[in-house]
């Protein structure tokens, strides 16, 4: 596949494509488009399915008990008869009153209204745990690859990973989907997936690597050959993973669909980054190190 494409030599183009998308993502995050869910900042969320009535957003907000800040109420329609209503953190009494009121306005039993109520403190804890998990995963993966391959591979894989994470979070911000605990899970999964993809290519590079001597032209050509050998697999694997994920996006309810969206972006980014980011970075790192090792002798 792609017999004439220069994966390594064309790095400026690949990096530019990613750079532009990353800039867009960073911009979206920068202007505050990232929609943090109640898992992270605390708040209450009510979920209704099979609603009898279809009230307007104003009617819904108006039905809530008077103590709740109307401005901060967010109503989301899930499908024809499904609704999600988000409010700031509620006390136990307010929560109960809101649940009864929503049951009435939607024409369902109060017990059928699903509630998630998260205090701000717990949200902070979840956020820290999530960041810790991502950091820990990154470190362990670098160590693992350095151990199984060598440091240059780990560095290249890391650049690709950071690229994928930024891309996933950025697209989340772009479309304004809600970031929840499930999103973090998705990001970590993307991390595992992207690294897997990268390793399949690196494994082939390792296999094709000559045991002695480094020559830039030869090494770059070898990387290109290695990618050509496994690129079909990379694409097939992505397709095979994206099929069930797309099914989740279409058929899954809110949580699953959010999860699927993150994976969709992440896996697509991951496939791209293993081929067009990780491999060129590896080649560039090798060239830089090769040059540095040689320069004292020429000087």
């Amino acid at each position: 596949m792609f017999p004439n494409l220069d994966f390594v030599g064309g790095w400026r183009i690949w990096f530019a494509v990613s750079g532009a998308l990353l800039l867009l993502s960073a911009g979206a995050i920068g202007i505050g488009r990232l929609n943090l869910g109640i898992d992270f900042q605390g708040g209450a969320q009510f979920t209704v399915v099979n609603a009898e009535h279809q009230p307007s957003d104003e009617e819904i907000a108006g039905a809530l008990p008077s103590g709740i800040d109307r401005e901060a109420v967010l109503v989301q329609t899930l499908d024809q008869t499904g609704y999600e209503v988000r409010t700031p953190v509620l006390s136990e009494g307010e929560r109960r009153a809101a649940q009864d009121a929503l049951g009435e306005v939607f024409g369902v039993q109060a017990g059928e209204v699903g509630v998630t109520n998260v205090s701000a403190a717990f949200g902070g804890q979840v956020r820290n745990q999530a960041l810790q998990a991502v950091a820990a995963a990154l470190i362990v993966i670098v160590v693992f690859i350095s151990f199984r391959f060598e440091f240059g591979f780990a560095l290249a894989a890391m650049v690709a990973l950071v690229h994928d994470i930024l891309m996933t979070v950025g697209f989340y911000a772009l479309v304004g989907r809600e970031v929840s605990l499930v999103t973090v899970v998705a990001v970590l999964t993307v991390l595992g997936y992207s690294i897997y993809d990268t390793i399949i290519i690196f494994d082939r590079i390792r296999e094709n690597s000559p045991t002695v001597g480094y020559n830039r032209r030869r090494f770059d050509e070898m990387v290109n050959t290695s990618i050509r050998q496994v690129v079909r697999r990379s694409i097939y694997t992505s397709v095979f993973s994206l099929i069930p994920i797309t099914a989740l996006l279409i058929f899954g309810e809110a949580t699953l669909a959010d999860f699927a969206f993150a994976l969709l972006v992440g896996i697509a980014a991951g496939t791209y980054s293993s081929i067009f980011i990780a491999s060129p970075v590896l080649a560039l790192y090798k060239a830089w190190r090769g040059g540095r090792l040689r320069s004292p002798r020429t000087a």
Partner: protein
Amino acid sequence: MGLVVVLLGVATYLIFIRQPVTESTQLGLDLQGGVSAQLKGTQTGGGKVTREEMELASNLIRQRIDRLGVAEPDVRVQGDDQITVQIPGVENPEEVIDIIGSTAQLGFYRVLDSEIQQGIPQDKVQDARTEIEEDLKDDDAFQDGDAKILFEESPIPGGGGRYVAGYVLNKTPDMTGDAIRQDGATVEPNPTTGKRQVSIQLTGDGGGQFGDLTQEIVSEAAPTGQPGLLAISLDKDIISAPQVTEPIFGGQVSISNDGLPEGMPEDEATQLETVLNTGALPVSMEVIAQNTVGPTLGTASLRSGLTAGLVGFALVLVLLLVIYRALGLVADLAMLIYAFLLWGIIVAVPVTMTLPGIAGIVLSVGVAADANIVIFERIKEEIRRGKTARTAIAAGYEKGFRAILDGNATTLITAFILFALSSSTVRGFAVLLVIGVVVSMFTAIVVTRALLGLLSDRGVHLPPGMMGVSKKSIVGQQRVR
């Protein structure tokens, strides 16, 4: 191959025969409805709690929920100071949350002053409280020292409105629940009068403290001519405020109500017993996160998750067949075996299925398909180099395996990190991803290989076209042309 057949047999037994298939898989509360809550404990007065105290508190919470007769609550200590409570299929979530949220802080106080209003209608209770509070705030006892006001409120039997009492107390309890022996409170008839009462066994220290406290109550009350009161509080509510007529030493206490023919009313006595036994712990609980899922919502989530899983799985099977032809057929069979074994393990462990769990499974379907793809691509490559089907299969496995191992190892690493660092919802995902990845490696390495071995040993001829390799891409053929 024999191993695989045995495993399939075991899985069939576990899923279909041991119990009806609809009951075989344990559903999490997001799929069948229920309540979950995250509680954070703090030492009363603000200090840090120990893990042991939290373990004890979680046992008490479990006991309290058990008393409601709810099916299988899952109460777990998380970290040093948090407890996760999950109760699937609950019909009265409100009551449950009240009970777990109000983990009791038991206190005993000398009553400095009190005021009582009786026969208050329900809607006037708040007014009565305000009135009592204002009166008591003017009181010397309140203004002199570090004092607070707590209330007792209970219905008067026979529909005579409500009984509201305010008490002026020292800010910190004179004695805490520590003083009571574990399960030290019992409802029993008074040995001499036969009237119902609650007996309390105190610890050695507790007996001494209680003696001092009652001594103080009696001597402070003596000048007023009124009997002194001992207030028993649960968090911010006074549960009972019995009179103390004489100092009680020796660690044996009984609370009775001799004014009624039967002694203390039965429900009041039982409540007091429960409060005393379960509240004997110096930890305050706060509900920091709470999640209630109605049964309809749960069913809808389950249905959407299953639809997504099945559709995705079916499409993967079809695509494998289209791309890899005969090899794809083998892979499909292996994938079906994979799915079945996975289900078997989920039932056997048992793993509770949740929404994130479904996501984990869907993802592992991709991983399982991938293991086959890596090996098949390798086999096709070997065939293009002109090797026979049989040697290509052997070489494909040998070379593909290392890549799969490294790749899956990283997936497992992230899954383990997720498990170690995250909350219970995320754990469901991590657990299923790990199981899914391990089973997928097993099926790709053992099952697919055995099936392919079976084909080539039986002398079934596999022309390249049947493996999805076009004739002209084979090196040997090109040379002939």
